[in-house]
């Protein structure tokens, strides 16, 4: 079974980079021919090429929450929580549920059977910086361990 671990975010936009940082840490820890770990600064339909051909997809991403929930870690199946974005005014606006739905229609049999998301609550990032804020930074080892557990690696 081939698994892709995908960290998504903008690594120079503070807390938005949490997915990227977690994936970079996981890449250092995971040495397994059946598991690929990638960090990307892209979203929407551009993810489609990356996820084709895998049996399982684990996505690590930031998700906007209320202030008191910043740093909380969530595990869920994205298509169960987020409706596909039906319309979009910018390519950024297609969420993963949309990409999965399109992929299943256009490339049946080549999309991951199982998709698990690990999300960290953040506030909207508007300042260019490589630094994450305290509570999001603190969530990093938690997410790393949760993903390793998901992969039966710890």
């Amino acid at each position, binding site marked *: 079974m081939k698994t892709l671990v995908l960290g998504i975010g903008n690594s120079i936009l503070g807390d938005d980079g949490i997915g990227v940082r977690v994936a970079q840490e996981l890449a250092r820890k995971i040495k397994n021919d059946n598991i690929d770990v990638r960090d990307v600064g892209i979203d929407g339909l551009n993810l489609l090429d990356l996820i084709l051909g895998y049996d399982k997809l684990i996505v690590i991403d930031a998700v906007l929450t209320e202030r008191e929930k910043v740093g909380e870690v969530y595990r869920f199946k994205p298509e169960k929580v987020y409706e596909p974005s039906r319309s979009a005014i910018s390519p950024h606006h297609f969420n993963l549920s949309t990409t999965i739905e399109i992929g299943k229609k256009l490339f049946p049999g080549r999309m991951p059977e199982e998709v698990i998301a690990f999300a960290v609550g953040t506030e909207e990032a508007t*300042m260019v910086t490589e630094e994450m804020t305290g509570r999001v930074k603190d969530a990093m080892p938690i997410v790393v361990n949760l993903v390793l557990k998901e992969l039966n690696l710890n």
Partner: protein
Amino acid sequence: MTRKIVIEPVTRIEGHGKVTIHLNEQGNVDKTYLHVTQVRGFEKFCEGRLFWEMPVITPRICGICPVSHHLAAAKAGDAILGVKLTPTADKLRRLLHMAQMVQSHALHFFHLASPDLIFGMEADPAKRNVIGVIAAMPDAAVKGVKLRAFGQKIIEGMGDKRVHPNAAVPGGMNRALHSDKRDEILSQIGDIIADCQFAIDLFKDYCNKNSEVAETFADFKSGYLGLVDANGNAEYYDGKLRLKDQDGMTLEDDVAPEDYLSIIEEKVEDWSYLKFPYYKKMGYPAGMYRVGPLGRLNVADGCTTPLADKEFKQFKEMGKNGILQGSLYYHYARLIEMLNCAEEIKALTGDKDICSTDIWVNSDCLNEEGVGVIEAPRGTLFHHYWVDKTGKMIKANLIVATGHNNLAMNRAVNEVAHAFIKDGKVTEGILNRVEVAIRCYDPCLSCSSHALGHMPLELTVHEADGSIRQVLRS
């Protein structure tokens, strides 16, 4: 392990697209605003870094147009070094850029814009979307995916990271094109060009059936800005700036990119993070101009390749003095450009020197500043850097395409709001129409990269006393 399915994050809407409409006492439109999120602090972030690093730092600004920032940064670096690229390096940069144009324009047309055209703006949003296109026209959906993947694969093949390109460096390129990759591109390009023509036919079919809508939807007068080559053809990678007015009169021509500040000024408004560039000599906001596909083709005299040029001539004939004003014509211009860029890819990969390894030049020169300009898929992109004697960045100024179009997009929203809100009656189709209007410009409304979450367009209508009358979400 605890399986935690939570609903909380869903309630928070991403701040990607927000429109507010303020009504007057009579319930008619007073003011409208399109709010765009713009990140701050990039200039500070760059300070003290070597200008050499900028082509790998700036693509991280945005996951949608990393190649544009990559190339503009490399070009600013060329200017600091005072170098002229080798012919092959110039061609490889162009190849990278043309690949990006094809992938970006294909993504926009087939996945974002085509549902409006295939189903009509009034169609039920449940059907009027990309999934609906896959169901109704699977062939078109597959072509869209194929075109985007073709461009993306070239970008990937020219660097070692697919989304954050690193092939261009100040002074040239850091890797040559392998003949296997060239041959692979050449083997596909015939089909790709045919698919571009298919997309054009799709749009023209829409225009034939909906000519009045195409001409009048979000139609307004403005200036137009774009790069042109020495023959006046639409140019995407290099060239000089040309600015025309609403009647096709040339206001500025042959302006060297480094002199952009002689024609453009930026205004700050307290309700938007994104600045508002305008044509200096006409003042604000009269100096509104549009960039991107419509801006480029409105200022150009032709296209560099035969099939695109033939289409371009038809495009010009549709306008008055060669100027098309309707926002929906952005789609037509975008598709002609996609064809132009596909034909350019064919010419570049067929060039005998494209696989040469003579791709970089050194320099002893270190100028204090450098400007890099390219026509990104969404419009003119400026990177302006100032460096100290050691090549460390002192200051950076970036003007991005969505910024140039900020005034125009606000105007487009305003036009639609006036047309669809009358005497206190907000019609149901308004959200659709506002969305369609903004979408024409293919704006990049966010610098964050998210795959999870909800990212609808949010439209808020305020009463004259400031209270919220209703909130609509796509």
